[in-house]
């Protein structure tokens, strides 16, 4: 009932003929309501919107800080470079691949874990806590652990376990993986899926626990198979939670910098757009080009965000209606 709250916030609206006095009082009241909001709003506009406008302007300039005297208006040249330069095109592709694969994999695994944790079993609380742990390791630290302690080809844990298991069965030439140099993209994806699965699990678990149990019980009484209940009751209910988790995850993973920076330093085709932009302005000093690439990221994000906002809005409307 948003309208109800809105109506309360408009006192005197139904009065037949508001006098000038009451109208100015109404205005003062409205400003009194707005006052607590303004500091946050103004601060955010200055710190986030203003810089983006500047980025937009720089993106149309030919500006390399190493040769500042050559700075000139470049039109859409930078944008053409972003879309044709093989490295930056690769970065766009990498960003999409990374985001889609990490989000999908962590959603699927997160759903499985949430379904398991939705049941009662011994030590459920502790198992949940253990499952959250990956999300609570500082991202740079997590990437370092994956790089050095788990994936390292000579003394990493994964190869160590392979050697150990092979030795257990009498073999002495265990296969050894070197994900970091043979499939670096896979290394980045695996480490990010490990970190983001708990996030998806938490959101989906909350969704499962808000499921109306009476319909499920009725279905069970009618002898519906667990699969039928999952397919026709649980999954439709979870849909908006899946969407929410996927889209929030996508917004964070599109921006990922830590894992790419730490695990592969953007080498071997793993540089995503945030990393490529960082390189372009921090090391290559190509300010115009970096800004154009930044604008491209924003456009991509807006496309994802439109869907995200719609999903959040549908949940939000339900809550606001209460």
């Amino acid at each position, binding site marked *: 009932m948003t309208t109800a*709250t809105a109506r309360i*916030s*408009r006192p005197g609206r139904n009065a037949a003929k508001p006098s000038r006095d009451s109208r100015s009082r109404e205005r003062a009241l409205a400003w009194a*309501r707005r*006052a607590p*909001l303004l*500091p*946050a709003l103004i*601060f*955010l506009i200055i*710190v*986030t919107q203003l*810089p983006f406008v*500047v*980025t937009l302007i720089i993106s149309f300039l030919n500006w390399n800080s190493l040769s500042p005297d050559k700075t000139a208006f470049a039109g859409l040249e930078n944008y053409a470079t972003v879309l044709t330069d093989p490295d930056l095109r690769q970065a766009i592709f990498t960003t999409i691949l990374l985001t889609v694969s990490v989000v999908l994999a962590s959603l699927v695994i997160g759903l*499985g874990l949430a379904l398991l944790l*939705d*049941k009662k079993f011994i030590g459920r609380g502790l198992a949940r806590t*253990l499952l959250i*742990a990956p999300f*609570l*390791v*500082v*991202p*740079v630290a997590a990437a*370092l*652990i994956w790089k050095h*302690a*788990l994936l390292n080809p000579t003394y990493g*844990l994964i*190869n160590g376990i392979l*050697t150990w298991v092979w030795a257990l069965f009498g073999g002495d030439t265990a296969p050894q993986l070197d994900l970091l140099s043979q499939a670096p993209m896979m290394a980045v994806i695996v480490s990010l899926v490990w970190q983001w699965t*708990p996030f998806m699990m*938490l*959101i989906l678990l909350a969704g499962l626990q808000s499921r*109306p149990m009476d*319909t499920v019980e009725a279905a*069970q*009484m*009618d*002898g*519906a*198979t667990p699969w039928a209940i999952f397919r026709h009751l649980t999954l439709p209910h979870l849909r908006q939670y899946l969407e*929410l*988790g996927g889209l929030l995850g996508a917004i964070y993973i599109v*921006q990922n*910098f830590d894992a790419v*920076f730490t695990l592969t330093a953007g080498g071997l085709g793993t540089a995503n757009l*945030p990393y490529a932009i960082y390189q372009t*302005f921090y090391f290559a000093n190509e*300010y115009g080009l970096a800004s154009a*690439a930044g*604008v491209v*990221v*924003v456009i991509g*994000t807006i496309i994802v*965000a439109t869907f995200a906002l719609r999903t*959040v809005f549908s949940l*939000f409307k339900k*809550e606001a209606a209460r």
Partner: protein
Amino acid sequence: MSTLTPAAPRKSGHARSTSRASSTTGPLRHGKSRMDPTRNNTAAGIAAWLLALLFAAPVMWMILTSFHSETDAATNPPSIAANLTLDAYREFFGETSGVSPWPSLINSATASILSTVLVLVLAIPAAYALSIRPVKKWTDVMFFFLSTKMMPVVAAILPLYLFARTVGALDNIWFLILMYTSMNLPIAVWMMRSFLAEVPVEMLEAAQIDGANLLLTLRKIIAPVAMPGIAATALICFIFSWNELLLARVLTGVVAGTAPVFLTGFVSGQGLFLAKVCAAAVVISLPVLFAGFAAQDKLVQGLSLGAVK
């Protein structure tokens, strides 16, 4: 809400099972097991525990390795039962190298705590104006806040860097604090609004009728409901600031460098240093692990911006 359409209503009214629906354990869930809910849960429990241990294994390995000597840490197959030692921690805190991580840890703490305080100071009044005494079109304002969060940091970082360089705010912790405040403010506003929306309207109206002034209402009615929410918001903002790398890497250097920036010193290998890396990762992750587990109950609500309870 959703109407029930059982796909295959076999022997209706028969064999009522108390177990809840799921498909993950496959064949076990069909036939006989449906009569025996305890067995179902045992299977699910075992599966859940195995997966939980698998997911936690890297964390546990990180902690175990941090207590091993460098030579025991770098073996293949792994030496799980090697002697425990604090050497790696001594090394991390600069016993031989003389490079102390303390300045970066203090910088991280300063940036995270002060930005969190600033966020709360700005977000709580804003959330009040969006829930308890809402402004007109408050939903539009909410979505404006959210949309700023969706803009990637990389799209604004160059102007911020140039601005900081021009005014001499580069490598200054205060500039980083302002950045972290803007980074977390939208999340905090959304979270705080969802917590403040839980304040019962009837109680607010009753207080108004009884002539309670704003301060009394805030203290007696709003604060008790909002306090756990404020705590959870603070913990989540703290975590995000503590974890942040890109802004810190670009905007700080030797003076104001934070713990994640310090950690990037370990990106390339340096001989036998695995235990030291693990010790570093443990030390720097500890505050986040504590904050996260402390906020566990409200973590979902926070991470989903209050959309999920």
